[in-house]
Every structure is written in structure tokens, then in C-alpha cells.
């Protein structure tokens, strides 16, 4: 079974099959949702802006409506194609964040205090950049 010279280590959180399956499903769902949003919106985007020259030589930066989280969501609800695509990108960025939140809950259930703290630190770091936009 195991190497003779080493006693088996204590089972840890990584051995939890149900949790792993849930994490796997969450990641897949996030990627598929993001992909679907972009696939649906891209023909409308190209129909509208396709004739414009693809000149990205000079960095101008996106306008506020494609930079701000709530503005992107508002635009996506109006079915603005560029905003829907950007919303897809946002869903993708949020997928690993949701994964960290899920692990945090799992450690909370197991009362594993050190790892609740570590997951919380990662979660805060992830949200700082996205929400404040200023670091």
C-alpha cells in the first residue's frame, strides 16, 4: 500500500471527494457560462462594429461602461453586445473567486480555523483589485 519508511499522514481537506466534485462542477459551470455569453454576443458585436478598423496599436483604455462592474452588468441587461461580452469576461474572472469562497465554506464547516483564515485572505485580495480598481 504505502511506502514502508513513512507512516501515513493525517487525511486532509484535499481528500474530500464530494467537495472536489462540487469544485469541479463550479469551475466547469463558470467557464461554460462565460463561453456561452461570448459566443452568443460576438455575432451581434461584429455585425455592429465589424466594419471598424481593428487598430489596437495605441493603448486608449476602455471606456467607463466596459470597466466598471455595475456598469458592465447594466449594459449586459440592456443587451448591448460589447457589454454582454465583457460580462462573459467578468463571469470568467469571478469563477476562481467563487471557487475560493466555496473552499472557505468547506473549511468553515470542518472548523479548520487556519484554513478559514487563509481562504479569507485570498478572497479579500481577489476582491480588492476587482472592486476598488485601485491598488
Amino acid at each position: 500500500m504505502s511506502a514502508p519508511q513513512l507512516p501515513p499522514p493525517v487525511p486532509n481537506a484535499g481528500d474530500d471527494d464530494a467537495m472536489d466534485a462540487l469544485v469541479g462542477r463550479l469551475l466547469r459551470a463558470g467557464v461554460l457560462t462565460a463561453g456561452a455569453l461570448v459566443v452568443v454576443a460576438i455575432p451581434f458585436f461584429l455585425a455592429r462594429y465589424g466594419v471598424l478598423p481593428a487598430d489596437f496599436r495605441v493603448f486608449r483604455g476602455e471606456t467607463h461602461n466596459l470597466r466598471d462592474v455595475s456598469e458592465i452588468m447594466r449594459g449586459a441587461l440592456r443587451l448591448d453586445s460589447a457589454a454582454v461580452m465583457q460580462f462573459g469576461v467578468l463571469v470568467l474572472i469571478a469563477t476562481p473567486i467563487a471557487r475560493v469562497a466555496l473552499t472557505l465554506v468547506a473549511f468553515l464547516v470542518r472548523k479548520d480555523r487556519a484554513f478559514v483564515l487563509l481562504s479569507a485572505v485570498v478572497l479579500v485580495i481577489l476582491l480588492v483589485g476587482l472592486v476598488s480598481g485601485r491598488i
Partner: protein
Amino acid sequence: MTLLAFAPLVALGAFFAGLLGSLTGLGGGIVIVPMLTLLFHVDLRYAIGASLISVIATSSGAAAAFVREGFTNVRVGILLEVATTSGALVGALLAGVTPTTTLSILFGLAALFTAYNSMQPLGDHLTDAPSHPWAKRLRLDSTYPTDEGLKPYRVQRVPFGLTLMFGAGALSALLGIGGGIIKVLAMDRGMRLPFKVSTTTSNFMIGVTASASAGVYLRRGYINPGIAAPVMLGVLAGALIGARILTRARSETLRKVFAALVVIAGIEMLYKGITGAM
């Protein structure tokens, strides 16, 4: 070129990057930025933004499958994510004040190191030494599946791993890459995790690391839907198909071809950075 021509061409290039990246296990991130800047004349900042998005997509897609196989060490992953995400925030901060010529030179060096590293022999660097005290305290030691059943391993040099991970996170943010190579080196050579555990745990962390800086870049306007969307779709399709045809045996020839491609891209990025053409 109009956007109507640009989008499918970029998606096609990203498809091949994702396919080759997945077949060789090197990831597509290291070729997306050179492709966008050198072939499509996209500003480096837009290229880095789009590349990070593709890195999140492939990492999350692959992690979904890997976590279930029992190789990924979730505890090690989360501990090291504290370092990679703080590194990513610092990297994103530095990216705002670093000239693109400097970034281009850094990218060239990273690409050359990637190619060099891909030619090194792979294998475990396990040890029987007792676990590092932090590893004991945080219960990082675990087991991994082998042909002879589950085998235990002991985690070493945790502070060293954390330090390297901070650097890996910063580099990932600065250059728009996953930084898997440094992550794997830190875990495999430094912390002495089994090689397969190192690669899957690295992949587990890459999405979170890239998400930290991608969030900042989105707020800073680096992410243009006209570039990021076709890159993301192309890389995803390539990686998915690559994972399908990957029948365990990795082609050595393919690896060499990809490494050669990365070397050419790296030299070009170095040249552009040094001559100030970036």
C-alpha cells in the same frame, strides 16, 4: 484590417496556441502575448489583458478535471495562493509604472526560460526527510495515487515555496502568463511534492492568480472585448480539443516544435524591447 477580419484570425491563432499548449503541457499563455503584439500589432497592455483572460479559462477548465483525480493538494494550493495573489496585486501595480519596452524584455527572458525548462527531464524529487514544521502544523502532507496505490509524501521548505510563489504571481500579472513553470519548480524542486501533484496544484492556483490581476486590469481598461473575446474562445476550443486527443503519451517532437516557437517569440520580444520598438 477590419474587426470582422481581425476577430476570426485572432481566434484561429489562439486556437492553435491553446491546442499546442495543452498537448505539450506548457499552456498557451506564453505565445498569446507575442502573437497579439508581433503579428497583430496590438498594444502590449491589451495583449496582457486578453492573455490573462485566456489563462483563467484554460486553468479553470483543466482544474475541473484534475481536482477529481486526487493529485491536487488543495491545502498546499490555498496556502500558496496567499503568496501568488499578493504577488499578482504587486505585479499589477508595477505594470502600471513599468515602460512597455521593459515588459517586453522581461517577457522575452521568460519565454527563453520556458523553452529551456521544457527540455529538462521531468520526474519526482521526493525525499524521506521529516516535514517542514509549517507543513506539520497546517497538515500539508498528503498522499497521491500511484500504480501501487496511494503513496504518502512530506512537504519541505514552505517559506521558500511561498517566496517563489510571490514572484510567480508578480510575473504572471506583469506579463499576462500563467507562470506555471515557476510554480511547478517551486513545488517539485523546492517543496519536494511529487511531480504530478506539483503540476495539478500549479494549475489549480493559476486561475486564482490570474483572476487577481485580471480584476485590476479590467478596472484599468486593459480588457478590450474585441480582443479578449476571440482570444478566450480560441484558446478554450484549442485546449478542449487538445485534452481530447491527449492520449497520455506526449509527443516529444511537438514539444520541440512548441519550444522552438517560444524561442523565436522570445527573441523577437527581446529585440523589440531593446530597440524600443514595443
